[in-house]
């Protein structure tokens, strides 16, 4: 489970950043990327964090993964506080972004083994999990080829394999289908679904409304760091005053 309570994240603004961000930020020393956001992600359900680029989605996910520290508020992941037990939190999460984030000079086998070792798995367990995953994803044919020489689909499979090698209870996906073709996106969507079916806590960020409809059980709409809606997707659909998700989103955000 992920529990986010009154979460705020402020970033210091450099003089250059202030200049680049326009007159609205003239004189501002900080910027609130996330402003008093609270939500809960429960096991066995997919939680979609929805918002346009720059809304604060990645910042929230990075705070969940302990890469960034909250300015105020708190996050607990699988019962562990991100401030006081960051290592415990990281032991319990799998993190994936739209970038394949792989080492080109390693092979899929080496990549997956490296991630398993960093998660403290022993060699026998790594081997067993690798064999299962490679079989499941059909990776055996290219398991020992350098990642840099693989096709984008093969790379994406490798990226999935390294994310799930340690079989964590909580999965964090930061715009995982961004920039991917239909076939590769489908593999990710299938992975997210299988995580839900396995009873894992899944949070993923997106700005594609189609994916929200396809995948999410619960959603949080975020814009300019603030939360505009948080609840189940079915509730959201029930209270929609516009025909499409896009229109409803624009209506919600625009009304603020």
């Amino acid at each position, binding site marked *: 489970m992920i529990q986010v309570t009154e979460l705020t994240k402020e*970033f*210091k603004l450099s003089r250059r950043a202030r200049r680049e961000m326009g007159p609205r930020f003239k004189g501002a020393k900080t910027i609130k990327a996330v402003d008093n956001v609270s939500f809960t992600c429960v096991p066995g359900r997919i939680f979609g964090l929805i918002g346009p680029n720059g809304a604060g989605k990645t910042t929230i996910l*990075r705070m969940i*993964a*302990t*890469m*960034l*520290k909250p300015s105020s508020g708190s996050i607990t992941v699988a019962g562990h506080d991100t401030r006081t037990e960051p*290592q415990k939190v*990281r*032991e319990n*999460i*799998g*993190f994936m*972004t739209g*970038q*394949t*984030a*792989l*080492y*080109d*000079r*390693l092979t899929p086998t*080496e990549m997956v083994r*490296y*991630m398993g*070792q*960093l*998660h*403290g798995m022993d060699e026998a367990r790594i081997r067993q999990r690798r064999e299962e995953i490679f079989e499941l994803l059909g990776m055996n044919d290219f398991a020992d080829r*350098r990642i840099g020489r693989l096709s984008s689909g093969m790379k994406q499979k490798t990226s999935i394999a*390294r994310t799930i090698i340690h079989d964590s209870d909580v999965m*964090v996906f*930061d715009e995982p289908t961004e920039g991917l073709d239909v076939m590769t996106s489908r593999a990710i969507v299938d992975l997210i679904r299988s995580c839900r079916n396995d009873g894992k806590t899944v949070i993923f960020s997106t700005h594609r409304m189609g994916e929200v409809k396809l995948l999410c059980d619960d959603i949080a709409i975020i814009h300019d760091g603030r939360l505009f809606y948080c609840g189940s997707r079915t509730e959201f659909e029930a209270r929609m005053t516009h025909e499409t998700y896009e229109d409803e989103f624009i209506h919600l955000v625009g009304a603020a």
Partner: protein
Amino acid sequence: MRRVVVIIRKEVLDSMRDRRTLLMMVAMPLLLVPGIIILMVKLQTAQMEQAESRQQRIVFVGAEVAPALYALFQEDDRVTLVPGIHRDSLAALIAAERLDGAVIVPPDFARLIAGDRQGRVEIIFKGVGSFGSVEDRMQGLITGYAAGLVAERIARLQLDPDLFDPIAVDGTDLASMQEKLASAVGGFLPYMFIIFGFMGAMYPGIDLGAGEKERGTLETLLSTPAGRFEIVLGKFIVVMAAGVATALIAMFGLYLGVRSFPEIPTEIFDVIMEMLGPKMILLILTLILPISAFFAAVILGLSFYARSFKEAQSIIAPLNIAIIVPAVIGTIPGIELNATLALVPILNVALATKDLLAGSINPFYLAEVYVSLFLLAGLSLWGCAQWFNREATLFRS
């Protein structure tokens, strides 16, 4: 600590498969160092031989008043005497390098010499080039002629030759061959391993920091249970090891370069081999280790700060100059290790190595060098870890 070992193993494997790193770490020092040495020595030898055997076109004015001196120039088979040039045009022709030099003997020369007085001879030349210059050649012939005159005068006047050579100096040089060699070329060795140590650490350093950001793998790594310090330490050790390995390979390259010259006298060769023996290498290694640690921390810190591989390159590459300057200062004769210079990073390594090679290191200064270097290495690692902990560094946009 287990995760640090995991990170080290992965980074070593990854770096060893990187062509750029291998080029910088192995190919460059192993080929470049002997290559430079061979090229320099061959070039110098060829230049000297060419200069020695080169025919020089010289004009001799006043042959009638100094026939013996003229004869010496005539007999030298490396001199071609050019006749028929007017004295007034000599300077212009020599400046334009159409002639190499001129000897001008004034009309009163014969009279002065015959009267046991001092005769004057003017020589004109263009003083460029160091080997077998025309000045040396003309001076040599004139000095030989003068020595003959002195000997003839002493004999004729029945004087004691000691009258003109009142003091005979018997010198006893206590400097060993090792000290002489260390003083002459000792600065070159630290210069080389400092530069190569930095260059060898540069590419892995950039790849392990900025490269990780560019690939997007940094987020993946940060989301694993590996702590920030474990990540920094693992990467730091690999970058440092790359620097040390490159420095050692460069020294091996130097050894190969020296070995490839059979012309080196056995006596000098033995001293060089003794200087580069296992004991000395171990001692030098104790200096390379902390300075490489310093390099690794600085390179990694800047690499983590950069947004991309390219940006990291543009930030770190100019540091080569900052490294070269103190290393070059260390090669200047007369600059010796003292209590103050022992605290100056890089320069202290260069000077301490020079003294170690000469076998004349002051233990107090050496201790000072070690303390300052290890302190610097520790501080720079701590600074690098702090830097890596900053969100503004890791997620700079």
